[in-house]
């Protein structure tokens, strides 16, 4: 779905104090209220604790019996959610840290994602797996990763990543209403942020965009999820330096095609692709490949986490992650 398709430039009107986190919490409350098939499961979701990142806080009190605290069993959580979905329910499972998704990789890829296709459309698995991801909090190598790249390109599996420039709750609702399993990755650093208005297209999982500077963008930046924290300042800095730039933020990141956006943006020469995951066969690799295959001739630079573990020490972590400076530098070099 390109920007041309359903682009309508609608700006979301959010309650003044809505944050990324409350938007998600409220959406789950509404879903639980409206649809008896919806239920939540995951580790430590119950009140008063309300989940490690407090996204489900208040829900178990409001909806007794509809929020389930599970054992520390990631594979069984996802497997059970799959069975609940097969049985007509609409489970939203939480994996406490996205790093632990690897424990459920078999359930997600060899079970949930396969059933509809391999059973010849006799069943669907309308399940959502929420997972907080990302670094920047000094949690160290096993609690800071952005492993969603390993779940891209999986037949039958969608991957959605909201930012504060989307409506995270609406995205979660769309994921719940989707007939297929959706991996829903939430960057930890975004939770406290207030939602921000942005243009977006009309897709069920909309792509948001922001332009900085006047005239056709000389630089087009693509990122998703937590990448917004570097790319938003970066395009402002570029604009301030006289280089008009556009940031494109898909919310559905699997199978995202940057080409229509590049055309729409006026075929800018410079394209910067940014992701927090480590280098190699990730999200930006797919985008770069599509831009290349389509013959855009764009000058492309990927900015990713370095090819290394994420250290606990904050200054080391920062030195490996992307940054606004890196995005700006790459953009200026390409646009030069």
């Amino acid at each position, binding site marked *: 779905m390109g920007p041309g398709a359903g682009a309508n430039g609608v700006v979301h009107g959010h309650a003044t104090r809505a944050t990324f986190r409350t938007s998600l919490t409220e959406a789950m409350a509404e879903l639980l209220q409206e649809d008896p098939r919806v239920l939540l499961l995951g580790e430590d979701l119950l009140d008063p604790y309300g989940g490690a990142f407090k996204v489900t806080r208040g829900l178990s009190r409001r909806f007794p019996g509809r929020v389930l605290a599970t054992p520390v069993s990631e594979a069984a959580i996802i497997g*059970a959610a799959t069975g609940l979905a097969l049985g007509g329910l609409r489970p939203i499972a939480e994996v406490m840290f996205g790093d632990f998704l690897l424990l459920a990789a078999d359930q997600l890829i060899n079970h949930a994602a396969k059933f509809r296709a391999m059973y010849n459309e006799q069943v669907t698995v309308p399940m959502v797996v929420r997972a907080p991801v990302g670094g920047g909090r000094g949690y160290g190598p096993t609690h800071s990763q952005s492993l969603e790249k390993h779940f891209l390109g999986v037949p039958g599996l969608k991957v959605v990543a909201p930012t504060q420039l989307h409506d995270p709750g609406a995205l979660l609702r769309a994921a719940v209403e989707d007939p297929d399993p959706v991996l829903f990755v939430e960057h930890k650093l975004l939770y406290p942020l207030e939602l921000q208005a942005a243009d977006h297209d009309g897709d069920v999982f909309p792509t948001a965009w922001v332009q900085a500077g006047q005239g056709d963008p000389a630089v087009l930046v693509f990122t998703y999820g937590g990448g917004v924290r570097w790319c938003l300042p970066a395009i402002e800095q570029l604009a301030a330096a006289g280089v008009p730039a556009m940031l494109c933020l898909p919310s559905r990141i699997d199978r995202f095609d940057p080409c229509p956006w590049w055309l729409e943006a006026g075929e800018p020469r410079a394209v910067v692709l940014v992701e927090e995951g480590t280098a190699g066969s990730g999200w930006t690799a797919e985008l770069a490949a599509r831009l290349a295959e389509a013959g855009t001739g764009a000058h492309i630079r990927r900015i990713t986490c370095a090819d290394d573990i994420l250290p606990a020490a904050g200054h080391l972590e920062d030195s490996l992650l992307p940054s606004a400076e890196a995005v700006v530098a790459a953009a200026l070099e390409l646009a030069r």
Partner: protein
Amino acid sequence: MAVAEGDLAVEIYAQMALIRRVEETLQSLFRQGRMRGTTHVSIGQEACAAGVVGALDRGRDFVFSTHRCHGHFLAWGGEPRALFAELLGRETGVCGGLGGSQHLCWNGFFSNGIQAGMSPVAVGLALARKAAGESGVGVAFLGDGTFGEGALYESMNLAALWGAPLLFVVEDNGYAQSTPRRAQHAGRLAARPTAFGIDTVTQEAGDPMAVRQLATALVHAVRVDARPRCLYLHTYRLAAHSLSEDFRDPDEVEAWRQRDPLLHMRARIPAEQADAIDAAIDERLAEAVAAAESERPARPRVSQVTGATPAAPIGGER
């Protein structure tokens, strides 16, 4: 009682004989090169399928099976013709030729090729049915080798903790592929479900009637209190693990062949009746194979849900 018991014996024999003949047919179709891929037959273990699945109510219950799933599928009422068509890659196969031998789905029956992978899924479905106020019971079949997989214990714990109406049925045939049970497991396997709060009953599957009786009682118990149980069956496969060579001690296999539960059941019903059953099965299967082989090849999937649109050149330069 005698009459009812006689009827039951006939039913069970017919079920077992059907499974046996279907799988022998599959073996010969593979041998003749009329099927490709691989398959796992349950020859010798039919009492498990006939005994357990027959204890279920097809209207509300459901079955999670394994790589060795044909017997369970047939006992559940699946059509031999649809099974043959599936393995032949025909449009009318159980899953339109997509799944093949290990990946079946039909009317509340599911199998997958990942050992123990279906156990948490079975827990989830059982809980969904329970939440819907249906009194359905699920059966989750497992082999002894599958006790190697951690996902099984996560599932047993969850099933017992949350009260999933699920009967775990272990078909302990003493081997996982080529490796004997004692080389795979420490402690006594049947003690494991108990340690996860699941009451477990052990039974020799050489006596199909006894299996049925026990399964019926256990399914009833699960239905009543919606708590999981485990039925641990000792059985033996008389054929090789899959299409590969069988390296087990021939004397061991022969000893078990002498105790073939199918022959045991056959002896429990009148010979003419057994002959008639066999003849009917042979006729049915001959027709089923012929029909399946004449059916159209499987068609490519229509809806590619999350399919990417193929990249097409959009730049001006080509």
